[in-house]
């Protein structure tokens, strides 16, 4: 990681706090209108998708219904659920948009998400051994982890994780790797498993039993459409999230260098450990503005639609402090993610020969 003195870190902290304070002071009707408009769009897409789905025996209707439902799930998970649960709209004091009571439309139980994502991932971002989001205890993405022969097949694991992403996220708190190592017992995981079954069961019931059976004669069509919508959401959200921390220039950290760190150091770690990608308004909406992952990690509880507005200021701060502002086109950033997954699946010696920049 870029080395900065405590004095420099303190200036960085002040610079970023100033950006944050300016937005906080300006929060108001515009932000409330934005999120309510997005919620309305989500409701319209979900209602539209579900109403159209039984008529999916007409092929174009099937495509429209599946895409509408898929996009509705994407918007609900990325721009509404993820952001609401970060507390971005708690100041609105609207019980429907409250971080601690919001439950989203995916298999992962919101309480589990708030613990593993909001607290663990956002506090210990990219600290190997503490941030379990780094590779999801499934993929080897840096040489902090020793290569094992099993890693050579990790691209297959990556594809499977993407396809079943909502279930991967839902089981994240299970910590299979720690259970296997005997660090936690299954009994300790029982409360989590109960929550997982309740929420996962609810989602499976809704999409794979209730709505298909409700329209019995066309049940297979509705089931297929719902599976398709979930698949669209899984692939997209997995891809967006992988672009957030696993691009070529996103850094990792050790526990030692982060022990007792200052807020300034935390800011620096968020900036250097995250990466953005560019795109149009629609791409930003569908990514829940995680296309501004750096801004999101520095200010996780500012309304996400503000990230594009403050991006220039964050870039200016980065420039001032000599911090790399990691962005690029979606294709370029995602390309480096794929390269990272593939190259770290290789033994170190082979990797250094084929992809020296990943060394």
């Amino acid at each position, binding site marked *: 990681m870029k080395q900065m003195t405590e004095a420099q870190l303190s200036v960085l902290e002040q610079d970023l706090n100033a950006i944050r304070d300016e937005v906080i002071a300006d929060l108001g009707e515009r932000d409330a209108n934005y999120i309510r408009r997005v919620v309305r769009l989500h409701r319209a897409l979900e209602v539209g998708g579900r109403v159209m789905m039984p008529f999916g025996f007409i092929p174009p209707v099937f495509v429209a219904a599946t895409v509408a439902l898929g996009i509705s799930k994407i918007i609900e998970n990325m721009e509404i659920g993820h952001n609401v649960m970060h507390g971005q709209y708690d100041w609105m004091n609207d019980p429907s948009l409250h971080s601690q009571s919001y439950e989203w439309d995916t298999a992962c139980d919101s309480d589990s998400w708030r613990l593993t994502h909001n607290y663990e991932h956002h506090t210990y971002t990219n600290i190997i051994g503490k941030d379990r989001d780094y590779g999801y205890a499934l993929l080897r993405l840096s040489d902090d982890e020793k290569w094992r022969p099993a890693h050579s097949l990790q691209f297959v694991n990556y594809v499977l994780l993407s396809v079943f992403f909502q279930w991967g996220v839902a089981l994240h708190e299970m910590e299979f790797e720690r259970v296997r190592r005997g660090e936690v017992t299954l009994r300790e995981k029982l409360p989590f498993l109960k929550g997982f079954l309740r929420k996962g069961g609810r989602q499976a019931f*809704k999409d794979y039993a209730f709505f298909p059976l409700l329209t019995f004669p066309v049940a297979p069509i509705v089931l297929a459409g719902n599976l398709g919508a979930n698949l669209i959401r899984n692939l997209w959200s997995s891809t967006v999230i992988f672009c957030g921390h696993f691009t070529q220039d996103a850094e990792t950290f050790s526990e030692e260098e982060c022990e007792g760190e200052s807020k300034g150091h935390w800011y620096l770690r968020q900036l250097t450990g995250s990466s953005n990608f560019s795109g149009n308004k629609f791409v930003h909406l569908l990514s829940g503005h995680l296309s501004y992952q750096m801004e999101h990690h520095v200010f996780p509880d500012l309304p996400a639609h503000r990230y594009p507005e403050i991006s220039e200021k964050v870039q200016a701060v980065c420039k001032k402090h000599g911090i790399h502002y990691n962005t690029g086109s979606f294709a370029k950033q995602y390309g480096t993610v794929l390269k990272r997954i593939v190259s770290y699946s290789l033994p170190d010696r082979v990797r250094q020969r084929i992809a020296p920049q990943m060394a």
Partner: protein
Amino acid sequence: MLSRIERSSALQWLGKQLFNREDPAAFFDPLLERINPMWVQQYTPARVERIVDETADTKTFVLKPAKRWAGFEAGQHVNICVDIDGVRRNRTFSLSSAPAQWQDNGIVTLTIKRLPGGRVTNWMHDNLEAGDTLGLGEAFGEFLVPEISEPLLYIAGGSGITPVLSQLETLAAADYQAPVTLLYFVRTQADIIGAEKLYSLRQNWPALTLNVLATNESEQPRFLRESDLEEVSEITARRCYLCGPKGLMDLAGDLLDRQGIAQDRRHSTFFAAAKAALDTDSLGGAVHFSRSDLNVSSEGDAVLLDIAEAAKLSPRYGCRMGICHQCSCKKTSGTVVNRLTGKSSGPGEENIQLCISVPQGPVTVEL
């Protein structure tokens, strides 16, 4: 139709599974609100029918609640919610109309005075218009008319008259026979709230003795005196109802003590001028954790998370630095100061982050 979902437990269960929320009917609100704001399910909407000026700084808001609203008893209050600059604000006001009117034509009224620095009262005066909707909670409160006929004494001050108006109208409609006296303190005769109603009651209801006293029209402020009570016939037999500013309530309490009126024959109700948030060093205060029914006091800039933990509670928390919102929790009343920004919150119900909220005076938290 949607509100019925809430009533059937099977549908309620199904709704939770399908929409991932405890109030499934509210899932469609963003769409329904566009069609008709009175169809919103998250709260009970009430349409502003008209707004009547009472005095220079007091208005009566005539409201028509959605049909599912459960009604009220004379003297009760309600929580209302309005969105101001994107923030939902909750406040409590007394209903000033009689329940009979609501049963008749579905109308209730709130009579609200502008409070200096009050965010909600001023906003309502300046922005609310006929045709707008606001959220209405169910009525609550123990300030109720007596069950049997007996002599009554009302002591009201300023806008503290609002629940009294509702009660007097109800008593008059029931042709209440026992003597009823109202001592109503106002700053000047121009500040009488509900003047028309009061004068018409006096005219048509012989049991009522109305005594309006202006405190600020003489050189010496004219407050409640012992002689005011002595002039009330059979004062010792009266059941007493008090509603007004703290000074009047304290004074009346002392004087009623001297008359030997038992505590269980006195009723007083909610009346608190929301204090404008002050940027002082007066941090700390009595903290009430309502779910655990625990009262503790705090001093200085201790944050609520530390206070709760010191009281052996274990609220959920994460970063303890205001980032992750794991410790977000509902504050039902009181003011807190954000340790990071130094800003004070409003006095009403809202969500706060325990790890960065310092009490400023008494605070109640749902924990």
